[in-house]
């Protein structure tokens, strides 16, 4: 492999990592019957929390913990409305996204009135040569999510809640508890994905820096037909598309910059058009459960 190809492969993996992390978390939530379109906002909250905590303490571990906390708080807010109050998940998720956009923007502007003096966040390095800690975590997550869903009793219970909540309830499973846990897990993964944006891909926070990555992750769950391995493959495809876009940009290819920026969204739409109809979602996805809470 020549240097350019190697570099392309490396950025493919780096750009795929946050998408895979967020999509794997959403996979667990959706398998439990929770459709959480608020992961975009949870990623953004995770990114800001990681930046602030990381820049203040210099510790990537503290930054990661802060990201988890912020994203899980938003996930709990989502669950409070969508699960406990049985509000519509689409509207609730949209509200969470707007809240995250407004709250992170306000906090960032108030905390840094003069943006010129922004310090950088600590960077997370490689655990093995060429393997970033976040990428390793994503691979580990993919393996354990697949094992959990397919081979464990708890995974079976979670899938039962997503497929037929009433039957699961009759079996003595707590639908509410399992859905809460799955939502919080999905939020935590989105938080880690957001943290990776400032601890690995860039070292600063920028308002609205997720730029639709959460929505692309949602599309990946459909593209991956609700299976962990295919979701990772899909994330790599998107990573490759973004990496190629940056390469073209750096090579000054004569294509207008905004048209290049459009590519990931058009690719997502194309992938949805080709694969969404074939993906069988859990039967009780996004349906409220009216049994005992």
């Amino acid at each position, binding site marked *: 492999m020549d240097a350019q190809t190697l570099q392309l492969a490396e950025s493919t993996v780096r750009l795929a990592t946050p998408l895979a992390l967020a999509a794997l978390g959403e996979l667990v939530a959706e398998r439990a019957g929770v459709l959480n379109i608020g992961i975009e906002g949870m990623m953004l909250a995770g990114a800001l929390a990681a930046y602030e905590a990381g820049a203040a303490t210099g510790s990537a571990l503290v930054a990661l913990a802060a990201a988890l906390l912020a994203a899980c708080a938003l996930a709990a807010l989502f669950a409070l409305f969508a699960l406990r109050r049985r509000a519509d998940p689409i509207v609730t998720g949209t509200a969470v996204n707007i809240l995250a956009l407004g709250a992170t923007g*306000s906090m960032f502007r108030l905390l840094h009135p003069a943006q010129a003096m922004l310090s950088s966040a600590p960077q997370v390095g490689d655990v093995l040569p060429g393997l970033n800690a976040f990428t390793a975590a994503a691979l580990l997550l993919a393996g354990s999510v697949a094992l959990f869903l397919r081979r464990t009793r708890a995974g079976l219970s979670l899938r039962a809640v997503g497929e037929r909540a009433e039957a699961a309830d009759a079996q003595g499973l707590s639908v509410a508890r399992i859905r809460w846990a799955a939502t919080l897990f999905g939020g935590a993964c989105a938080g880690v994905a957001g943290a990776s944006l400032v601890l690995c891909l860039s070292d600063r926070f920028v308002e609205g820096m997720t730029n639709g990555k959460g929505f692309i992750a949602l599309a990946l769950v459909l593209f991956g037909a609700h299976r962990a391995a295919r979701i990772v493959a899909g994330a790599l495809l998107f990573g490759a598309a973004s990496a190629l876009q940056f390469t073209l940009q750096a090579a000054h290819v004569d294509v207008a910059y905004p048209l290049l920026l*459009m590519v990931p969204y058009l690719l997502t739409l194309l992938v949805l058009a080709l694969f969404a109809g074939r993906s069988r979602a859990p039967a009780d996805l996004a349906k409220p459960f009216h049994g005992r809470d």
Partner: protein
Amino acid sequence: MTRARAFAEPLVATAVALALAGALLALLGADPVAALRALAGGAFGDSLALETTAVRAGPLALLGLGVALSFRCGIWNIGGGGQLAAGALAATAFATKSASDWPGALALPLALLAGAAAGALWAALAAALRVYRNVSEVLSTILLNFVALELVAWAVQGPLQEASRSYPQSDALPAAARLALFPGAHIAHVGLLLAAALPFAVWALLFRTAAGLRLRAVGFNPDAARYAAVSPELETARVLVLSGALAGLAGAIEVCGVTGRLFADPAGGYGFTAIAVALLARLHPLGVLPASLVFAALAAGGGAMQRSAAVPSVVVQVIEALVILFSIGFALPRREGA
């Protein structure tokens, strides 16, 4: 539910959201009272402030109307911002490139029509994906927002850029394609009359015609609608296209009435704010009018708040999100059990 509650609950939701946003500001070390005073001044302080609020309410009413219409039918059009951008782009393209080929009296109506048609087309993409490829309109409309944003960014530094090529913006629209100001007004334009009238038209369509009954039937229960020979797919496409046309018209009105030329990101935050407008209006077409004024006042005041009280204007988005959360409990119909 009584009529009094129908009016009281949105007021309570707005008040609680404002109070919580004030608490957030206080926590972050800003002065919430000064912020609120600056906000009120920017929204209602003088005649220019009042006109700013009215001008902001126009697109919010049209976008909110589209959202109310689609949510009521169980269709999640989150793409008002993109549809508005498509409308602004088409109206500008027509007005700056080919309006001179037409009689002057037709320039403005055709520009508005081009905007509505482009918004409808942009939404029709999502409708086609939903009907033919079973793609959720939630994701497709959101993704199309990003595509529209980049499309406009490309247009204002490419084919539609001003002749002098100095800034990423289009040429000024010819006078024939501009909406006139009200006599004696600084910025309030007659396009606002259209934004004020269309909610009544949509109300009549929904509640006084058979077509409106079919649309509402799909929202109540798609399966029952199918038994009554109503095609949910066809109604879905109709609703998306109609709400897209309203958003596109809003975009055309913005360039023909307010900005006078096309800039990057014509929608700003209007697309998301419209969702708050529709929910505060309890998805009622006429409720959209007062609700759009509430959020227009917040938008107009937000700018003033940032300038004079040094409070970030994006805090307005926090208020919007809180209003949505407090509204969903009573604005949306409870769905049937799983």
